């Protein structure tokens, strides 16, 4: 038996294409991460909260606040709600088990879903940036590499949290419920509904290191070109480790 085994390259392509098709057919999951961020931008851009120069530097409120929370929103929705709901559905319906008896095995379908999730994040952020640039004259970050690094770290953090949700949630509905609670919980503390500095001191402190607020902080400072709060970077890094650890410890294939 010298025949090569395992998943052929064509199989990887087919798995990613299949996941992309299903994500595209899941209308609400597709549309919300594309439309909610522009709404947030319009809200921030038109109400233009009165922020002091030590927060904005020489950039606009859409660049320092609007785009960072739009990016955090896309990441939180796709990473913590959409991807876990697909994974929980696959486990529940036996798809992972079914693929376990093909040359693919069950793991590549998770990776394919992750790849499509990242593509969806890229699309959502692309749409948000396009709207910000056209409607509010936003430009690229003053520290583009810091922004990119922050985005990669933030993506890892939200997907790791999503993996933990997928590992612990018994059903797709449970995954969506848990994801939405995390979305609003971290979002509320992290500035989704307005300047988090208006929150009571301890809550604002917590919100700044949780993934949503930390993402907004890291991207906002990258737009200004100043160093981020080390607590925010550490918060994202710890989220990656804890989320991945929980996922690895508790994930079940069936």
């Amino acid at each position, binding site marked *: *038996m010298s*025949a*090569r*085994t*395992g*998943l*052929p390259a*064509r*199989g990887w*392509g*087919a*798995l990613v294409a*299949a996941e992309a*098709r*299903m994500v595209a*057919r*899941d209308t609400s999951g597709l549309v919300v991460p594309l439309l909610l961020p522009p709404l947030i931008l319009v809200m921030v851009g038109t109400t233009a909260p009165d922020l002091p120069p030590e927060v904005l530097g020489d950039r606009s409120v859409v660049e320092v606040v609007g785009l960072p929370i739009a990016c955090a929103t896309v990441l939180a929705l796709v990473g913590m709600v959409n991807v876990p709901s697909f994974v929980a*559905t*696959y486990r529940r*319906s*036996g*798809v992972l*088990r*079914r*693929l*376990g*008896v*093909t*040359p*693919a*095995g069950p793991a590549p379908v998770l990776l394919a879903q992750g790849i499509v999730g990242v593509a969806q994040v890229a699309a959502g952020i692309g749409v948000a940036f396009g709207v910000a640039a056209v409607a509010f004259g936003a430009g690229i970050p003053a520290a583009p590499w810091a922004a990119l690094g922050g985005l990669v770290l933030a993506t890892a953090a939200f997907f790791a949290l999503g993996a933990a949700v997928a590992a612990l949630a018994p059903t797709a509905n449970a995954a969506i419920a848990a994801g939405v609670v995390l979305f609003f919980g971290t979002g509320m503390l992290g500035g989704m509904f307005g300047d988090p500095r208006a929150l009571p001191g301890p809550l604002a402190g917590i919100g700044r290191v949780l993934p949503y607020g930390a993402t907004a902080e890291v991207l906002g400072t990258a737009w200004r070109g100043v160093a981020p709060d080390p607590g925010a970077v550490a918060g994202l890094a710890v989220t990656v480790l804890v989320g991945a650890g929980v996922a690895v410890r508790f994930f079940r294939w069936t």
Partner: protein
Amino acid sequence: MPPATGTVVVVDAIEVRGLRKRYGGTTAADGVDLTVPAGTVVGLLGPNGVGKTTTVECVAGLRTPDSGTVRVLGLDPRRDRRAVRAVLGVQLQEAALHDMLTAGELMALHRALHRTGRDPGGLLDAVGLGAQAGIRSDRLSGGQRQRLSVALALVGAPRVVVLDELTTGLDPASRETVLDLVRGLAAGGVAVLLVSHRMDEVERLCDRAVLLDAGRVVADASPDGLVAAAGLAPRVRFRTDAVVDRSALCALPGVDAVTRTGHEVAVTGRGELLGPVGAELVRQGVVATGLRAERPTLDDAFLALTGHRAGPRAEVAA
């Protein structure tokens, strides 16, 4: 060095030896032995909860046996799982399909997961789903999903196939289609392990039948052989209101016993009984209705060998 001439290594496509598997306090498989040679269909029979699915899951590499060995074309389904997945096609009891993909898309996806395989469109046609290729799998009927599941198991042109409750939920015409497909597989040299509790299906399709009861193999023979092994006598039955001379019937050659329950009389024995019994009834001037010979079926054999029926009503706590 060329291999020594005349050396033939016969490897059973599926070989299970002394398979044991416990879940908590329940023993699902308790020393199962089973072989499936290439080009044959072997039926794995038994009521629910006797270890059929556990055995199949160990063959498919989905579970690790507590003890015993499992080999698929000489490979260990756990240790050599990649090699086994390439040659083994499995249809699991639950269809487990991606809901949002169409039948055609699912076939193309599963075909792409294999390096070699069959034409997805042709195979969909072969299971009678050619017209449903564009329909999402969550909108297919139960029987259509079942047939799609069978087609997906075969699209990688596997050399060994495991089919778990193949025809559940299929209408008679679809059943024939699927049974023909399985016959064709065996004719092409594929080894087929068929899990079933439909005795008629096993009688028609299988070269050998392995009967499981409480995690053990209680019989392993051809379907005819199983019936013979159960030691069930052929029987002639008829109904009558009249008084029958039972001792005269008993004296007929080959007759072992005559029993009467109300109007129903049963004559059991060996060999051809219908002619002599009919002639004797005429001689006695007994008017009988419904005179018929009954060959014991695999169902009867199952009952005799295990003490309960094979069907779903015999379900026992797993």
